[in-house]
């Protein structure tokens, strides 16, 4: 199996440990991740989608054509990229007028959107194409962790179009994937709430974004979790860097480390904190790691 691996921006350019973990995981799964050479930003839905739909769709379509040329489906592990690419792909497959318009633009650079690729999320591939059993066989170090799963917004919604889960407000996919690693997904209040970063809000008004994040962190703390698990580097950044911004603004002392699902699997497969670039994140992961691996160290 081959997959066109869409990197996006924040993962490769801020949290490369997520990329590293993903490459190692897919090696182990015997799935080839093929680089989408020359891919760009998805583009950022909050700004491009909000400013000019045509530009947004055109740049997204260019990325889609790269995968079409490779004859492969796209995988992304960023909800923002997933939302952008999935939505653009869906729109251009459905709407002939828009497709004609976008192809007009693409023809200027010698490209054409054909509608022959599908956009998939990492978690979706792990559940549907890999399967839980196979994943379970990879786990070397079951993790003793209580975690708050954060789904984010553009992974499952809008449900009607994406269809990964029937009920985006009561999903199971990430909780299931997390628990395969031995970690326990702890329920918490308003679990499905947004991290606050999306829609261009983080760039526009950091205070409002921090207020969202604080609400999430309050609820996660009340549930007593050791770590936050996400499937989106933007949410990841918001919980990591944003956590320090919350602490600055509210005088709080939140210190919940943040793992992308791929990093969690990396840990369970025995990768080090350095390989996962957890040591470069703002929130110290060491206490959680000590707990996670404590029993196995005996």
């Amino acid at each position, binding site marked *: 199996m081959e997959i066109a691996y869409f*990197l996006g*921006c*924040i993962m*490769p*350019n*801020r949290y*490369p*440990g997520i990329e*590293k973990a993903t*490459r190692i995981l897919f090696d182990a799964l015997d799935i080839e991740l093929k*680089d989408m*050479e*020359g*891919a*760009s*930003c998805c*583009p*950022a*839905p*909050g*700004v*491009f*989608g*909000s*400013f*000019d*739909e045509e*530009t947004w769709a*055109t*740049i997204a379509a*260019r990325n889609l054509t790269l995968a079409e040329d490779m004859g492969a489906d796209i995988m992304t592990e960023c909800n923002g990229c997933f939302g952008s690419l999935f939505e653009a792909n869906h729109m251009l497959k459905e709407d002939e007028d828009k497709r004609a318009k976008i192809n007009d*633009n693409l023809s*200027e*650079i010698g*490209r054409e959107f054909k509608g022959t690729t599908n956009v998939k999320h990492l978690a979706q591939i792990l559940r549907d194409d890999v399967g839980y059993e196979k994943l379970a066989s990879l786990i070397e170090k079951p993790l003793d962790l209580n975690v708050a799963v954060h789904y984010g*917004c*553009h992974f499952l*919604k*809008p*449900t*009607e179009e994406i269809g990964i889960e029937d009920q*985006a*407000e009561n999903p199971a996919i990430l909780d299931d994937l997390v628990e395969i690693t031995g970690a326990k997904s702890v329920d918490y209040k308003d679990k*499905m*709430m*947004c991290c*606050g970063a*999306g*829609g*261009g*809000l983080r*760039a*526009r*008004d950091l205070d*409002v974004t921090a*207020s*969202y994040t604080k609400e999430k962190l309050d609820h996660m703390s009340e549930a007593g979790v050791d770590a936050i698990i996400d499937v989106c580097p933007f949410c990841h950044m918001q919980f990591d860097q944003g956590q320090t911004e919350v602490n600055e603004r509210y005088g709080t002392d939140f210190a919940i480390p943040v793992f992308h699902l791929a990093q969690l699997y990396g840990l369970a497969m025995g990768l080090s904190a350095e*390989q996962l*670039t957890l040591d*470069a994140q703002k929130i110290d992961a060491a206490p959680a790691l000590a707990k996670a691996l404590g029993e196995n160290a005996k």
Partner: protein
Amino acid sequence: MSIIKRLRSLFVGEEDKEERSTVGKKSVGIGVTSSKLDNAIVSGTKTTVMISGVVEKRPIKNSIEEKLPVIEEDKHSTDEEIPKAESENFDAEENQEEDSLDMIVDDQPSKDEEDVIEEESLDIEENSSSDEEDNNTVDELDSTEKVDSKIKNDKKRDNMTLLTDKELLTDANRDSEFTAEFIDAGIETVKHCFQCGTCGGGCPSGRRTPYKVRQIVRKCLLGLKEEVITDDALWMCTTCYTCQERCPRSVKIVEIIKKARNVAAHAGYMAKPHKMTGVFVINTGHAVPINDAAKSLRSKIGLSEVPATTHADEKALEEVQKLCKITAFDELIGYDEATGGLKE
């Protein structure tokens, strides 16, 4: 921040009149600074000072409705007066309320108004006693809030409506082309909204910002273009889709918001940080470009120093730049090719 301005102007304006019309009358809360006000617009607490001011200065024969225009007029004369008001720092006096009460009674012998005054006096007494409980802990700031909300409350109650003349909208405010933009973009469901408010009920932004999603949807349908696109609150949505998931009429709410933002952006309403995101994409192909720290991290863990994206492919970057030109995105955000930044 227009709410703050308005509250402040209402207050300062009133205060000013009060000073002019009553000798030796002390006022509470006039020393509030604007920065304090900034944090203090939401409280629903009440006080009596301001309302007594309103009542006493009212030269009105009968109708309370006339209070409204009086208050509105004050708005115009306020800005210059703010510094003056701020410079006069009066100490709040606890007995203030009682004084005011006396003055009302003294100054208002007219029979026509007695009912009204009595009614308000009742309120005043109630509030006075509750104020006394708080006693010295009530600072000037609180007084301001109380004053303002009291005025508002009375306005609403007395007029039996939430609208002032200024807020009335007519067909002249409507722009049918604006509505058509949504329909043309395939968002016909904007017409299906029956304003139940499920969207706002679940909206995480609405519980911390002035973003009212139900209202925006309505305004888009009515064609109230200027109202929609000039409102900063339009940008307080994180596009989390909670509203859209729960909408009993399957209205594509997030699409509506994004479309409204498109119209706003093309009318020039764009925040600089957002434009800068566009600049980064035009310059590098990435909204969040690589930096030295990330390069060294990547090398350290055995990844290519730079990802195999537009970062590593000049021709690919040129494609992206060309597309941004074709769609005139560069012009939209004011991209300056010469400097690689924004024109302003």
